């Protein structure tokens, strides 16, 4: 190979790739607005992003899969946990993670900052990013629960869930409600007995919890709801 050929390889290789990168960057910018729902990106979402950066959240958590790997990914946290659970974690991490082997710092955020952060996380949860992350994939929530729901409408615990109107605050399957955490998510983390105790007195199990007590239900009824929720847990093995 001559020096001339070598130089030619350098220029052709570099410039062709550069042109491709810049061209696609231009096109990507034309599509960002639709893919990220930029029409919902208001001043409060931007204030939330400022708060997110001010408190260096991203060096423990990942978001869109980027950042520290020390804490859960926040891309779909809004559809997974809902507003109250997010608030409780930010406002009182020392209580929310009292039993956890991994802690979150208490950074004394103002109420306004917390509200902004929730708005930011809500906006992020709607970014169309080809259904990543897999563990919070909307398609998967739906697949894994549709089947269960079909049979469950005839079962006593499902009737209880309906009677007590749990779904007015919690998401389940393709039903969306963002006040409390998604039922499949709770099912993967807790056992039936824990859920039964929680239903009786949420405040005792998680101080600061917003959920009302369902102490008018019997222990058996609460256990049935617990078993039902545990059976909903997302995951391929169920």
């Amino acid at each position, binding site marked *: 190979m001559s020096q001339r050929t070598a130089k030619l390889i*350098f220029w052709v290789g570099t410039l062709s790739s550069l042109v491709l990168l810049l061209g696609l960057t231009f096109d990507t910018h034309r599509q960002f607005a639709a893919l990220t729902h930029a029409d919902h990106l208001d001043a409060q979402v931007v204030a939330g992003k400022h708060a997110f950066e001010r408190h260096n959240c991203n060096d423990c958590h990942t978001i869109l899969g980027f950042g520290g790997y020390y804490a859960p990914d926040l891309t779909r946290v809004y559809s997974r946990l809902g507003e109250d659970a997010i608030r409780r974690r930010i406002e009182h991490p020392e209580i929310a993670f009292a039993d956890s082997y991994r*802690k979150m710092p208490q950074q004394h955020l103002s109420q306004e900052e917390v509200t902004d952060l929730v708005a930011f996380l809500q906006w992020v949860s709607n970014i169309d990013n080809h259904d990543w992350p897999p563990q919070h994939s909307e398609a998967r929530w739906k697949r894994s629960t549709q089947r269960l729901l079909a049979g469950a409408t005839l079962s006593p615990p499902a009737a209880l869930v309906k009677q007590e109107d749990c779904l007015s605050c919690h998401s389940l399957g393709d039903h969306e409600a963002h006040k409390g955490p998604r039922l499949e998510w709770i099912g993967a983390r807790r056992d039936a007995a824990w859920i039964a105790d929680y239903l009786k007195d949420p405040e005792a199990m998680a101080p600061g919890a917003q959920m009302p007590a369902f102490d008018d239900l019997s222990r058996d009824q609460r256990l049935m709801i617990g078993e039902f929720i545990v059976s909903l847990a997302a995951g391929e093995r169920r």
Partner: protein
Amino acid sequence: MSHSTQRIAYPYFAAALLLFALQVAMGLWVAANYFITMPQSLVDVFPFATARAMHTNLLVLWLLLGFMGATFYLVPEETDSELAWPKLAMVQLGILLVTGVVALVGFFFGWTQGRPLLEIPRPLDIAVVVAALMFLANVGVTIFRAKRFTAVQGSLVAGLLFLALLYLFGIPFYRNLSVDWYYWWWVVHLWVEGAWELIAAAMTAFILIKLTGVDRKVVEKWLYVELGLFLFTGLAGTGHHYYWLGAPRYWLWVGGIFSALEPFPILLMVIDTWNDVRHRTRPMQPKLTWIYLIGGVILHFVGAGLFGFAHTLPQINYYTHGSQVTVSHGHLAFFGAYVLLNLTFFYFAIPRIKGFPDGRYDERGGQWGFWLMSLGVLGMSLSFAVAGVLQTYLERIQGEPYILAQQPIRFWMFVAFAHGLMVLAGVIVTVRHLLTLRPAPEAAAEQRLEEGLPSPGYGG
């Protein structure tokens, strides 16, 4: 060393080495956070996030100081002239070190831009830009006054210019998170897989020319081809970071195809180095410098090329993205590609700056440093890889909640920590060795060379 202003490189190297030791020590603390339950009172004051910001920023700062020092050593020799403004180079070092210290102390008190790896607050970014402009002016004026242009310094200066230009994309506040990450990668990806590769290839070519005595024309010819392939695969290869951030679907194709080709230029660099070694006209001395050079080229290929390829295809990356798999690749790639390269250059340049005959030095102790560090980082990366595969399977495929999937990972983080202790020991040995380098025991060295035998007591 042919020009007295090349001496400017030494304070850069010394500062870089001390920051390196601090970076690795901070890394151990970061790892400890994974397997020890830290008390809430400590987490409130010194959270993982702060320690991680220190660990990563120290890495970037010391590697850049190493590159800059290497440039100040290399450019006078390539242009055959003195550096334009040696005093300015010292002022620049002062600015960078003060900025670095202020940033580290600032992180502790929560003063941060809050974006991973780009945590340095915006007012300090201005200081960094000023220092970068001083640096580019100094090097640029030296080259233009001398009017001697070589491919080696062309690649080096192009890499440095590219590096400085890309830093600007990391400074503004972006309203849209997806756009933010899009340009974040212009700094991070286009640095390590673009600008820094240009710098690395230039530094490697320079050392090869000096150490092997192979014809400059041959080395420079392959340098062009390597750079062409690096940039061809690396520029559009940025797409492998655009799969899941809210960008159009075609990035899955572009990112997948171009980044699958990324190992090839590194492989060419391995083959090219091997060829130069075969056609050398000088003995492979000093041995330790060669161990560093060849070790670096190999681990560059393994860490950046192979470990990178392992999770770059979108079908795989969908499950591994944002897990400890990335951490595994990141540690071995940075170590192989840039840490060992800087240390190779230090071992090449420091004896010459100190005026040791033929660039030879007393190698005793240095080998321990190399092997402790290299085996330590390799073990660490493999531990992270196990953790990453576990996380991918339990969290991404089985759908277990994050905190449950992390439970079995804690053990592997402890294993990584244990290897980290090995790395720290190696770093302390190496830093001490480099900062107290002594000339080779002359007679003994000559005798060994004639017999062609490995020296007793020299370890590796």
